[in-house]
């Protein structure tokens, strides 16, 4: 199940790096790209929207980010001409119930995961992705 290309979008550099190390350590993925800013990730996806091989298989998305927050990112993502079925996970430290409610408005979200990332949570996410396939 390794070698699934994964994008981590999180403005907190330390968090992004730790999540990346955990993904490698627990064999979730070793093809990881970090974005500390959701606009950069949007640029990347827009550019590669039709290149199925270049596009990621999984996106781990933070909510509270400057410039473009997670929700704004998803609004724009919906408009991209992407044919690939990318698994999008919200990865957040928010305990605000409004955020959980908002996540239900986006069917493209596979699951809403609370930080910290643990091996159990990674296994759960892997199962979800396999079910989908």
């Amino acid at each position: 199940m390794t070698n699934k290309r994964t994008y981590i979008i999180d403005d907190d550099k330390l968090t992004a790096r730790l999540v990346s190390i955990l993904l490698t350590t627990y064999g979730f993925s070793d093809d990881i790209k970090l974005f500390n800013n959701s606009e950069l990730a949007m640029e990347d996806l827009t550019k590669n929207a039709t290149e199925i091989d270049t596009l990621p298989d999984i996106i781990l998305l933070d909510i509270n980010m400057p410039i473009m927050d997670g929700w704004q990112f998803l609004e724009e993502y919906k408009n991209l001409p992407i044919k690939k079925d990318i698994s999008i996970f919200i990865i957040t430290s928010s305990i605000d119930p409004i955020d959980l409610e908002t996540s239900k408005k986006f069917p493209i979200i596979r699951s809403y995961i609370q930080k910290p990332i643990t091996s159990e949570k990674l296994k759960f996410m892997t199962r979800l992705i396999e079910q989908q396939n």
Partner: protein
Amino acid sequence: MLHNSNDSLKAANLARVGFWELNLKTNKIFWDTTMRSILEVENDYIPNLEEALNFYDSGEDRSKMKSLVERAITKGIPFVQTFQVTTFKNNSKYIESTCQIARKNNKIISILGSCLDITAEQNLINELRLNNEKNSSVFLSTNDAVFIIDAKSNTIRYCNSRAFELSEYHSLELIGQDISVLFTRKQASDFTLFLEKTIANEHYLIGESNLTTKSGNSIPVEIAAEMKIQTDKSLVFICFFRDISVRKKEDEQIKMLSLAASETTDTIIIANDIGEFLWANNAYLELCGYSVPELMLAKPGHLSKGPETDPNTTDQIREAIKAKRSITVDILNYNKKKEKYWFELSINPIFDPNGLCTNFVSVGRDITLRKEKELQLKKLAEEMSLQNSKLINFTHIVSHNIRSHASNLSMLVDLIENSINPKDKISYFELFKEGTDKLSETIEYLNEIITIDKNTGIQKKTIFLNEEIEKTKQALSLLIRDSGLEIINLIPPQLKVKVIPAYLDSILINLMTNAIKYKARNRKSTLEISHQMTESHCIINFKDNGLGINLNRHGDKIFGMYKTFHGNEDAKGIGLFITKNQLEAMNGKIEVESAEGLGSTFKIYFYDK
């Protein structure tokens, strides 16, 4: 003036009509010989106004003549009227009096008129009336109950059908009966006295009593009685009984209404069709402290207006009165002592049957206590909602920052526990240090914010703003020079603001460093600091030509905690949140206007009072 009236004199003599004149300049009265003979006075008798009026029979006739003469003198209204007079020799006469107005240069200079003795005619009319009353058809045609009563025995000789209807008795039951059958004992003796007075008066009398019907109902009646000598020399009384129960009931209702209006604790004001004061009840007089004559001089609203009265409300009232509409408002009024009171006021126009507005009636009450509680509650609610939104911000920082640091640390512990390679372990410890540093930094910011909230009560000082800006520029001079930002200080040197100095310092540093952080890279950067004064605030504008902010997207978050907008390394998103809190602690506020790519203007409000 007499020579001018020669023609009238001649005419008057010809027609056997008396002539009189009242010269308003000399206040002298002239009576001609005919006039003197009517009133049976000597030719050397010199009348004055008061004595002249005394010839008119006391009561209705005299007061009517008095008011007609007054109207003629003051308003120039002529009249023709029949009066009963008592002559100098104590003879009763009927006269027909006319009055004309003489003017010079539009000013009334005298009133003059004729006087015709109509005693003979009047007596004839009275006699005819009496004769007519013998005819039963007159009785039947009138709606009054008529009783003819024998003066000697007080028994009923005759009564009309209306009398049976009113008393509920059959004709056989009443004819020949003592009139007292129609009254209670007390009222019967009153009625007998009344009839005796009629004899003494030699003229008809009017009184009121209660008629007791067969079934025992009591009906209020007005009674007109007249004594008459029959052809057989016997004396009878002709009595007209008029059912006045409807009028009595209305009178009673009006009495109750006026009692309610004058005694209620609600205030009542009656004004004319253009809103001028006519009447107010005691409750209003007590509330406003003005007397009726004082209120007469102005429209009610003018006296009660004060500096804090909402001009919109008074405009609304004025509009409603102009448009003859109803209106209900709460208004802050002032009493005579210039004390404020909240007044709930409902103004209603009154229309006559033709749809014309005749009056305005306003009903109101003092709602100061209720209003004060309302305002208190509103203030409390505003404070609560402010506190609430601050609390939400705190939840946010706990959720997003402390939790995110904590989750970072917990992920690191996970990695340290599960890594076999000692080199990896050491590098994770480095990251662990980074994580704990960030956590303590966050906690420090949190502390700073809590301190601001606690310091709301700190004493403010008055300082020169221009000087403070120059000081801050000096402190940041290296940073400013490196950035190439030009700060244009347009604050006049004498402008003073009342602030907590440490907060002002922090606010100035924040806004200047923001202008540096978010300057546009492709043009010369400027920050212009200017001011404007409003009634309650001194507003300082910080206008830059930097990157600007998309307020549609970020407007709600810009002053929140930990929000940055430009992906800038230095931007911690805490600066504006602290600035906002510091201003709020000084009773001020901050607003922003911005356009992406053009620049931002931060408006700082200092509450100066």
